[in-house]
């Protein structure tokens, strides 16, 4: 059997002592993309942070890249955070930011070698940012910064890639480029877990869906999970985008 990149059984994560997300049982296999879907504040980013080892596991089990702890020291996980906390004035070039993706592999002292510089150059090419490499990161446009952080995640040459709202703020060409990148990574055997609001997008690039709202609603193949009953359970009485139509899911009426 192929080794699972991410494998959880009833796992719960907490901020301090408040449980933020409970009872998640899911897995990501090599070459697979999983969409993590839920309303705002439903614990999507929490799940990514839990998988990264930033939040403690309070119950259940979590296996990442075959390890159940200290799995994030070798730099084999790529992560794209939501780009909302970065100091625009910080004196680093885009290339230096992307090189940060190599830091864990470089360790404390080793200088970047040809293989590291090549990984950075490749990541910049894939994200279409090669010509901007020596520009200060803060002077890039919002979409370019987002792609720059994606390049940083790609430069790690990850086995598992976690993307937090990667399609936010992307225009159509960039969106298509990102879809192509995700497909290419999948064909290389990379496992991908991405959060999104966009069900269309999930259908386009993902193999399965994890639907959450503070706890697991459903996990499995797209057509089995994205049912009206499940979406209603996750989103309650709010609008959900289904097939480019705004669909108002009726609330519970008992």
């Amino acid at each position: 059997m192929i080794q699972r990149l991410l494998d959880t059984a009833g796992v719960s994560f907490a901020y301090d002592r408040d449980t933020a997300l409970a009872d998640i049982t899911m897995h990501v296999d090599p070459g697979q993309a999983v969409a993590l879907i839920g309303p705002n504040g439903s614990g999507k980013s929490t799940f990514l942070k839990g998988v990264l080892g930033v939040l403690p596991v309070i119950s259940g089990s979590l296996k990442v890249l075959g390890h159940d702890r200290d799995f994030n020291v070798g730099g084999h996980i790529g992560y794209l955070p939501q780009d909302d906390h970065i100091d625009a004035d910080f004196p680093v070039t885009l290339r230096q930011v992307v090189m940060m993706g190599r830091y864990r592999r470089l360790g404390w002292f080793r200088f970047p070698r040809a293989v590291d510089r090549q990984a950075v150059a490749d990541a910049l090419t894939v994200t279409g940012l090669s010509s901007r490499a020596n520009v200060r990161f803060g002077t890039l446009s919002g979409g370019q910064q987002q792609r720059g952080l994606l390049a940083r995640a790609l430069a790690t040459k990850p086995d598992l890639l976690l993307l937090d709202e990667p399609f936010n703020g992307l225009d159509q060409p960039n969106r298509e480029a990102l879809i192509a990148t995700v497909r290419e990574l999948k064909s290389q055997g990379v496992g991908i877990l991405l959060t999104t609001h966009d069900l269309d997008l999930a259908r386009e690039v993902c193999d399965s869906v994890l639907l959450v709202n503070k706890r697991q609603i459903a996990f499995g193949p797209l057509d089995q999970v994205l049912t009206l009953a499940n979406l209603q359970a996750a989103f309650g009485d709010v609008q959900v985008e289904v097939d480019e139509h705004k669909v108002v899911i009726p609330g519970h009426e008992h």
Partner: protein
Amino acid sequence: MSLSEALSSIFVMPFMIRAMLVLLALAIAAGVIGVFINLRGLEFMADGLTHAVFPGIAAGFALSGQEGLVVGALAAAAFATVTLTLLSHRRVTSDTAVAIVLTAMFSLGVIIVSRSRHVTGSLEQLLFGHLFTVSVTEVLLTAGICVGALLLVMTSLRGQLFSAFDSAGAQAAGYRELTNLLLLNIAIAGVVVSASIAVGNLLVLAILIVPGAVARMWARGLAGVFTGALLFAVVFAFAGLIGAFVVSVSTDVAIPGGAAIAVIFVAGYVLSLAFRLVIQQRRRAAGS
């Protein structure tokens, strides 16, 4: 002594050589570490540390004179660093934590000073340093502490940079935020302690904060910021030392070395700021 005699004697007199060695060590450490203070916005934390070290200096001096200075300062710095780092890492807002520890420790220092006549007389020296009368032991201690502080930051350089740029991303990459912050704060405390001897407790902040801030105004990349801060710190520290010495011997007005250096640093900052504004004005005028 004439001006030219004074100038030519600078590099021969043992006390001047000791002062230069102390300043060189301090400028290098403060230049590099100051950049991290700037990048992580830890100026207020650094201020808190300088004030928190004061009771240690006072107590050390009261108990065993000049020799006790460093021991007391180190003890107070160790306590304050751990307390401040933990408090700022918890839910307490960083600024609140720093303000409380700063005030508490500084008041303690003032109480110690006021209870001991022996110390009261030397208050000026405690606050403003004794650059021209540092002993060989103090030179070695300062150099040792500065090298140690630099090693702490340099060995954790990548984690420090990553955390400063994007702390969520750094944590996600497996860097421990608390470890990084503690290492950096220990390094800052090291510079504060060693600088307290030479330039004094109240003036440390200028040396720590100005070089990084000035370099940040001009440099675009990381290499430029570090090089700029280092150059500024070394050049302006020597300028301050030589200026204080020359004025003191040629006019018979004794100028404290530490104060002269702080003034020169701040003057450098103001000049740099003014220059920057003029250039921006010109660019705007040219662009319109």
